[in-house]
């Protein structure tokens, strides 16, 4: 067991201090000093969404930001659990377990280099914290933020006003580049090539990005989703097929991930095939 796993905490009294909302999307700000202090970009929380047994399990949600004892999450209502979560009001206390997982690698050699951070839909969640830390490390992050329609890129101004270069795309052209975010990345690659690419979003987006990165020989790390039972390595429920050190096998996304080097990921289509 890696040592960082000891750096997780159950905060039963994380106070929700601010709720921002746009359509299906919610940005929650908590006071949770301990988790905030430990958190690194790409890590996530397991959030208790009900006080009873229904739904039974916590929900995995990325850490959107952690700074001065505050902790932020950004989520989209996807089903019953996130719907219950969305009903919480400022002043409520929530039960958070975290920070969990390995997080993105911010390497010293990124300093002075261009780094692409690509997020699709709710996949934007962990990239703000990442870009902020990349900035602090002297790198130049560019955020690519895609969605189906303008309503799906609610964090655009939030990112921009934090001084982060943000390129947006929508499938229907209602905001920014008209087309898939992967096409926007390709277009941009014609002009400038990053030293590294981070991504988080729908499986299809990431699979396409992996192709692009391999073609252009850009190293990268992708944050994967999977259905999680515990979030801390106890259930073996969250595994994905990963190719590592010459062996392919099921690794726990919650503990060995959710962030994986792109070359290690076995895409689900291949797996089913």
């Amino acid at each position, binding site marked *: 067991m890696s040592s960082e796993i000891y750096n997780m905490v159950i905060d039963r009294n994380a106070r929700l201090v601010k709720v921002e909302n746009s359509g299906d999307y919610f940005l929650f700000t908590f006071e949770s000093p301990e988790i905030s202090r430990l958190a690194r970009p790409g890590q996530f929380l397991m959030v*208790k969404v009900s006080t009873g*047994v229904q739904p*039974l399990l916590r929900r995995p949600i990325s850490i959107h930001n952690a700074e001065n004892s505050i902790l932020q999450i950004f989520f989209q209502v996807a089903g019953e659990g996130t719907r219950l979560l969305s009903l919480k009001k400022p002043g409520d206390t929530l039960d958070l377990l975290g920070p969990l997982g390995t997080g993105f690698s911010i390497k010293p050699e990124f300093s002075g280099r261009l780094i692409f951070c690509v997020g699709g839909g709710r996949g934007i969640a962990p990239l703000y914290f990442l870009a902020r830390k990349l900035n602090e490390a002297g790198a130049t992050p560019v955020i690519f933020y895609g969605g189906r329609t303008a309503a799906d890129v609610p964090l655009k101004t939030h990112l921009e006003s934090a001084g982060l270069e943000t390129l947006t795309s929508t499938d229907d052209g209602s905001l920014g580049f008209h087309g898939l975010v992967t096409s926007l990345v390709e277009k941009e690659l014609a002009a400038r090539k990053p030293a590294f690419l981070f991504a988080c979003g729908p499986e299809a987006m990431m699979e396409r990005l992996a192709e692009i990165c391999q073609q252009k020989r850009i190293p990268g790390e992708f944050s994967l989703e999977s259905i999680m039972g515990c979030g801390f390595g106890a*259930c*073996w429920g969250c*595994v994905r097929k990963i190719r590592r050190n010459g062996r392919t096998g099921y690794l726990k996304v919650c503990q060995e991930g959710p962030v994986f080097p792109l070359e290690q990921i076995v895409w689900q289509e291949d797996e089913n095939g």
Partner: protein
Amino acid sequence: MVDLSVDLGFLKLKNPVLAASGTFGYGLEFKPFYNLELLGGFVVKGLYFNPREGNKPPRLVETPSGLINSIGLQGIGVEAFCREILPQLADLDTAVIANVCGEDEDEYARVAEYLSRHNGLAALELNISCPNVREGGRCPAQNPEATYRTVKKVKQVTSIPVITKLSPNVTDITSVARAAEEAGSQAISLINTILALAVDPETRRPKLGNVMGGLSGPAIKPVALRMVFQVSRAVKVPVIGMGGITSATDVVEFMITGAAAVQVGTANFVDPDACLRIIQGLEDWARSHGVERISELTGSLKI
């Protein structure tokens, strides 16, 4: 002072709360959350002789008040367990129990025999009831004869006490329990998960990669209690009850119904310190109810 200890005959526990196999990793996963020595004990993840890949994901799906899993006993195998994990557990002042699996009757014996050569295990729990490894969810615990043979074979190769874990997917659980007892099992634990299916109406596919899986959690508690009731009246050896326990009063219910001890499973995923909370709650409950020795509860159901 409440006396929480329970005596299973072959094993004395500090308190009746064990963490259930497959929901507590190899124990180490829970060290960040509390001192494992506060537990009555814990059962480690199921062990086959060789390492196993486990089933194809998705492996989990939530259902109303329940969870279906089809992990398929992914694990490191008994050799790696004894080499890498057991030494870290052996000195713990709590009951460490191994969960013994097998593709066939011989493998159960081989795993048990291998484990018996090492120190540190308080008991072996024979998992003859996992619905996630054979075609159609079948397992030895669905048949009294297969149960008898498996337990007997294991008993012949080990001097570590044996607990046999039963499956709820049977017509008559008492006949299986009696078969295990006759073969020399020193305790019966139950229930393992109920064979279940979930379907995605959009894709028209099963929600689990392995099609069927095992249902656990609060949804199954009433079925588990019923079986603990039936089995505790059918055998003389102690019964270790489980299925949907999330609170101290759940433990009290299982004990009243006939369990000498209990296991907590799925609840460990939701609250990593669930067992600890439950043990503390049990002490509070006993105190507020004037119960001096928790073991008095066992089988005190008034009919």
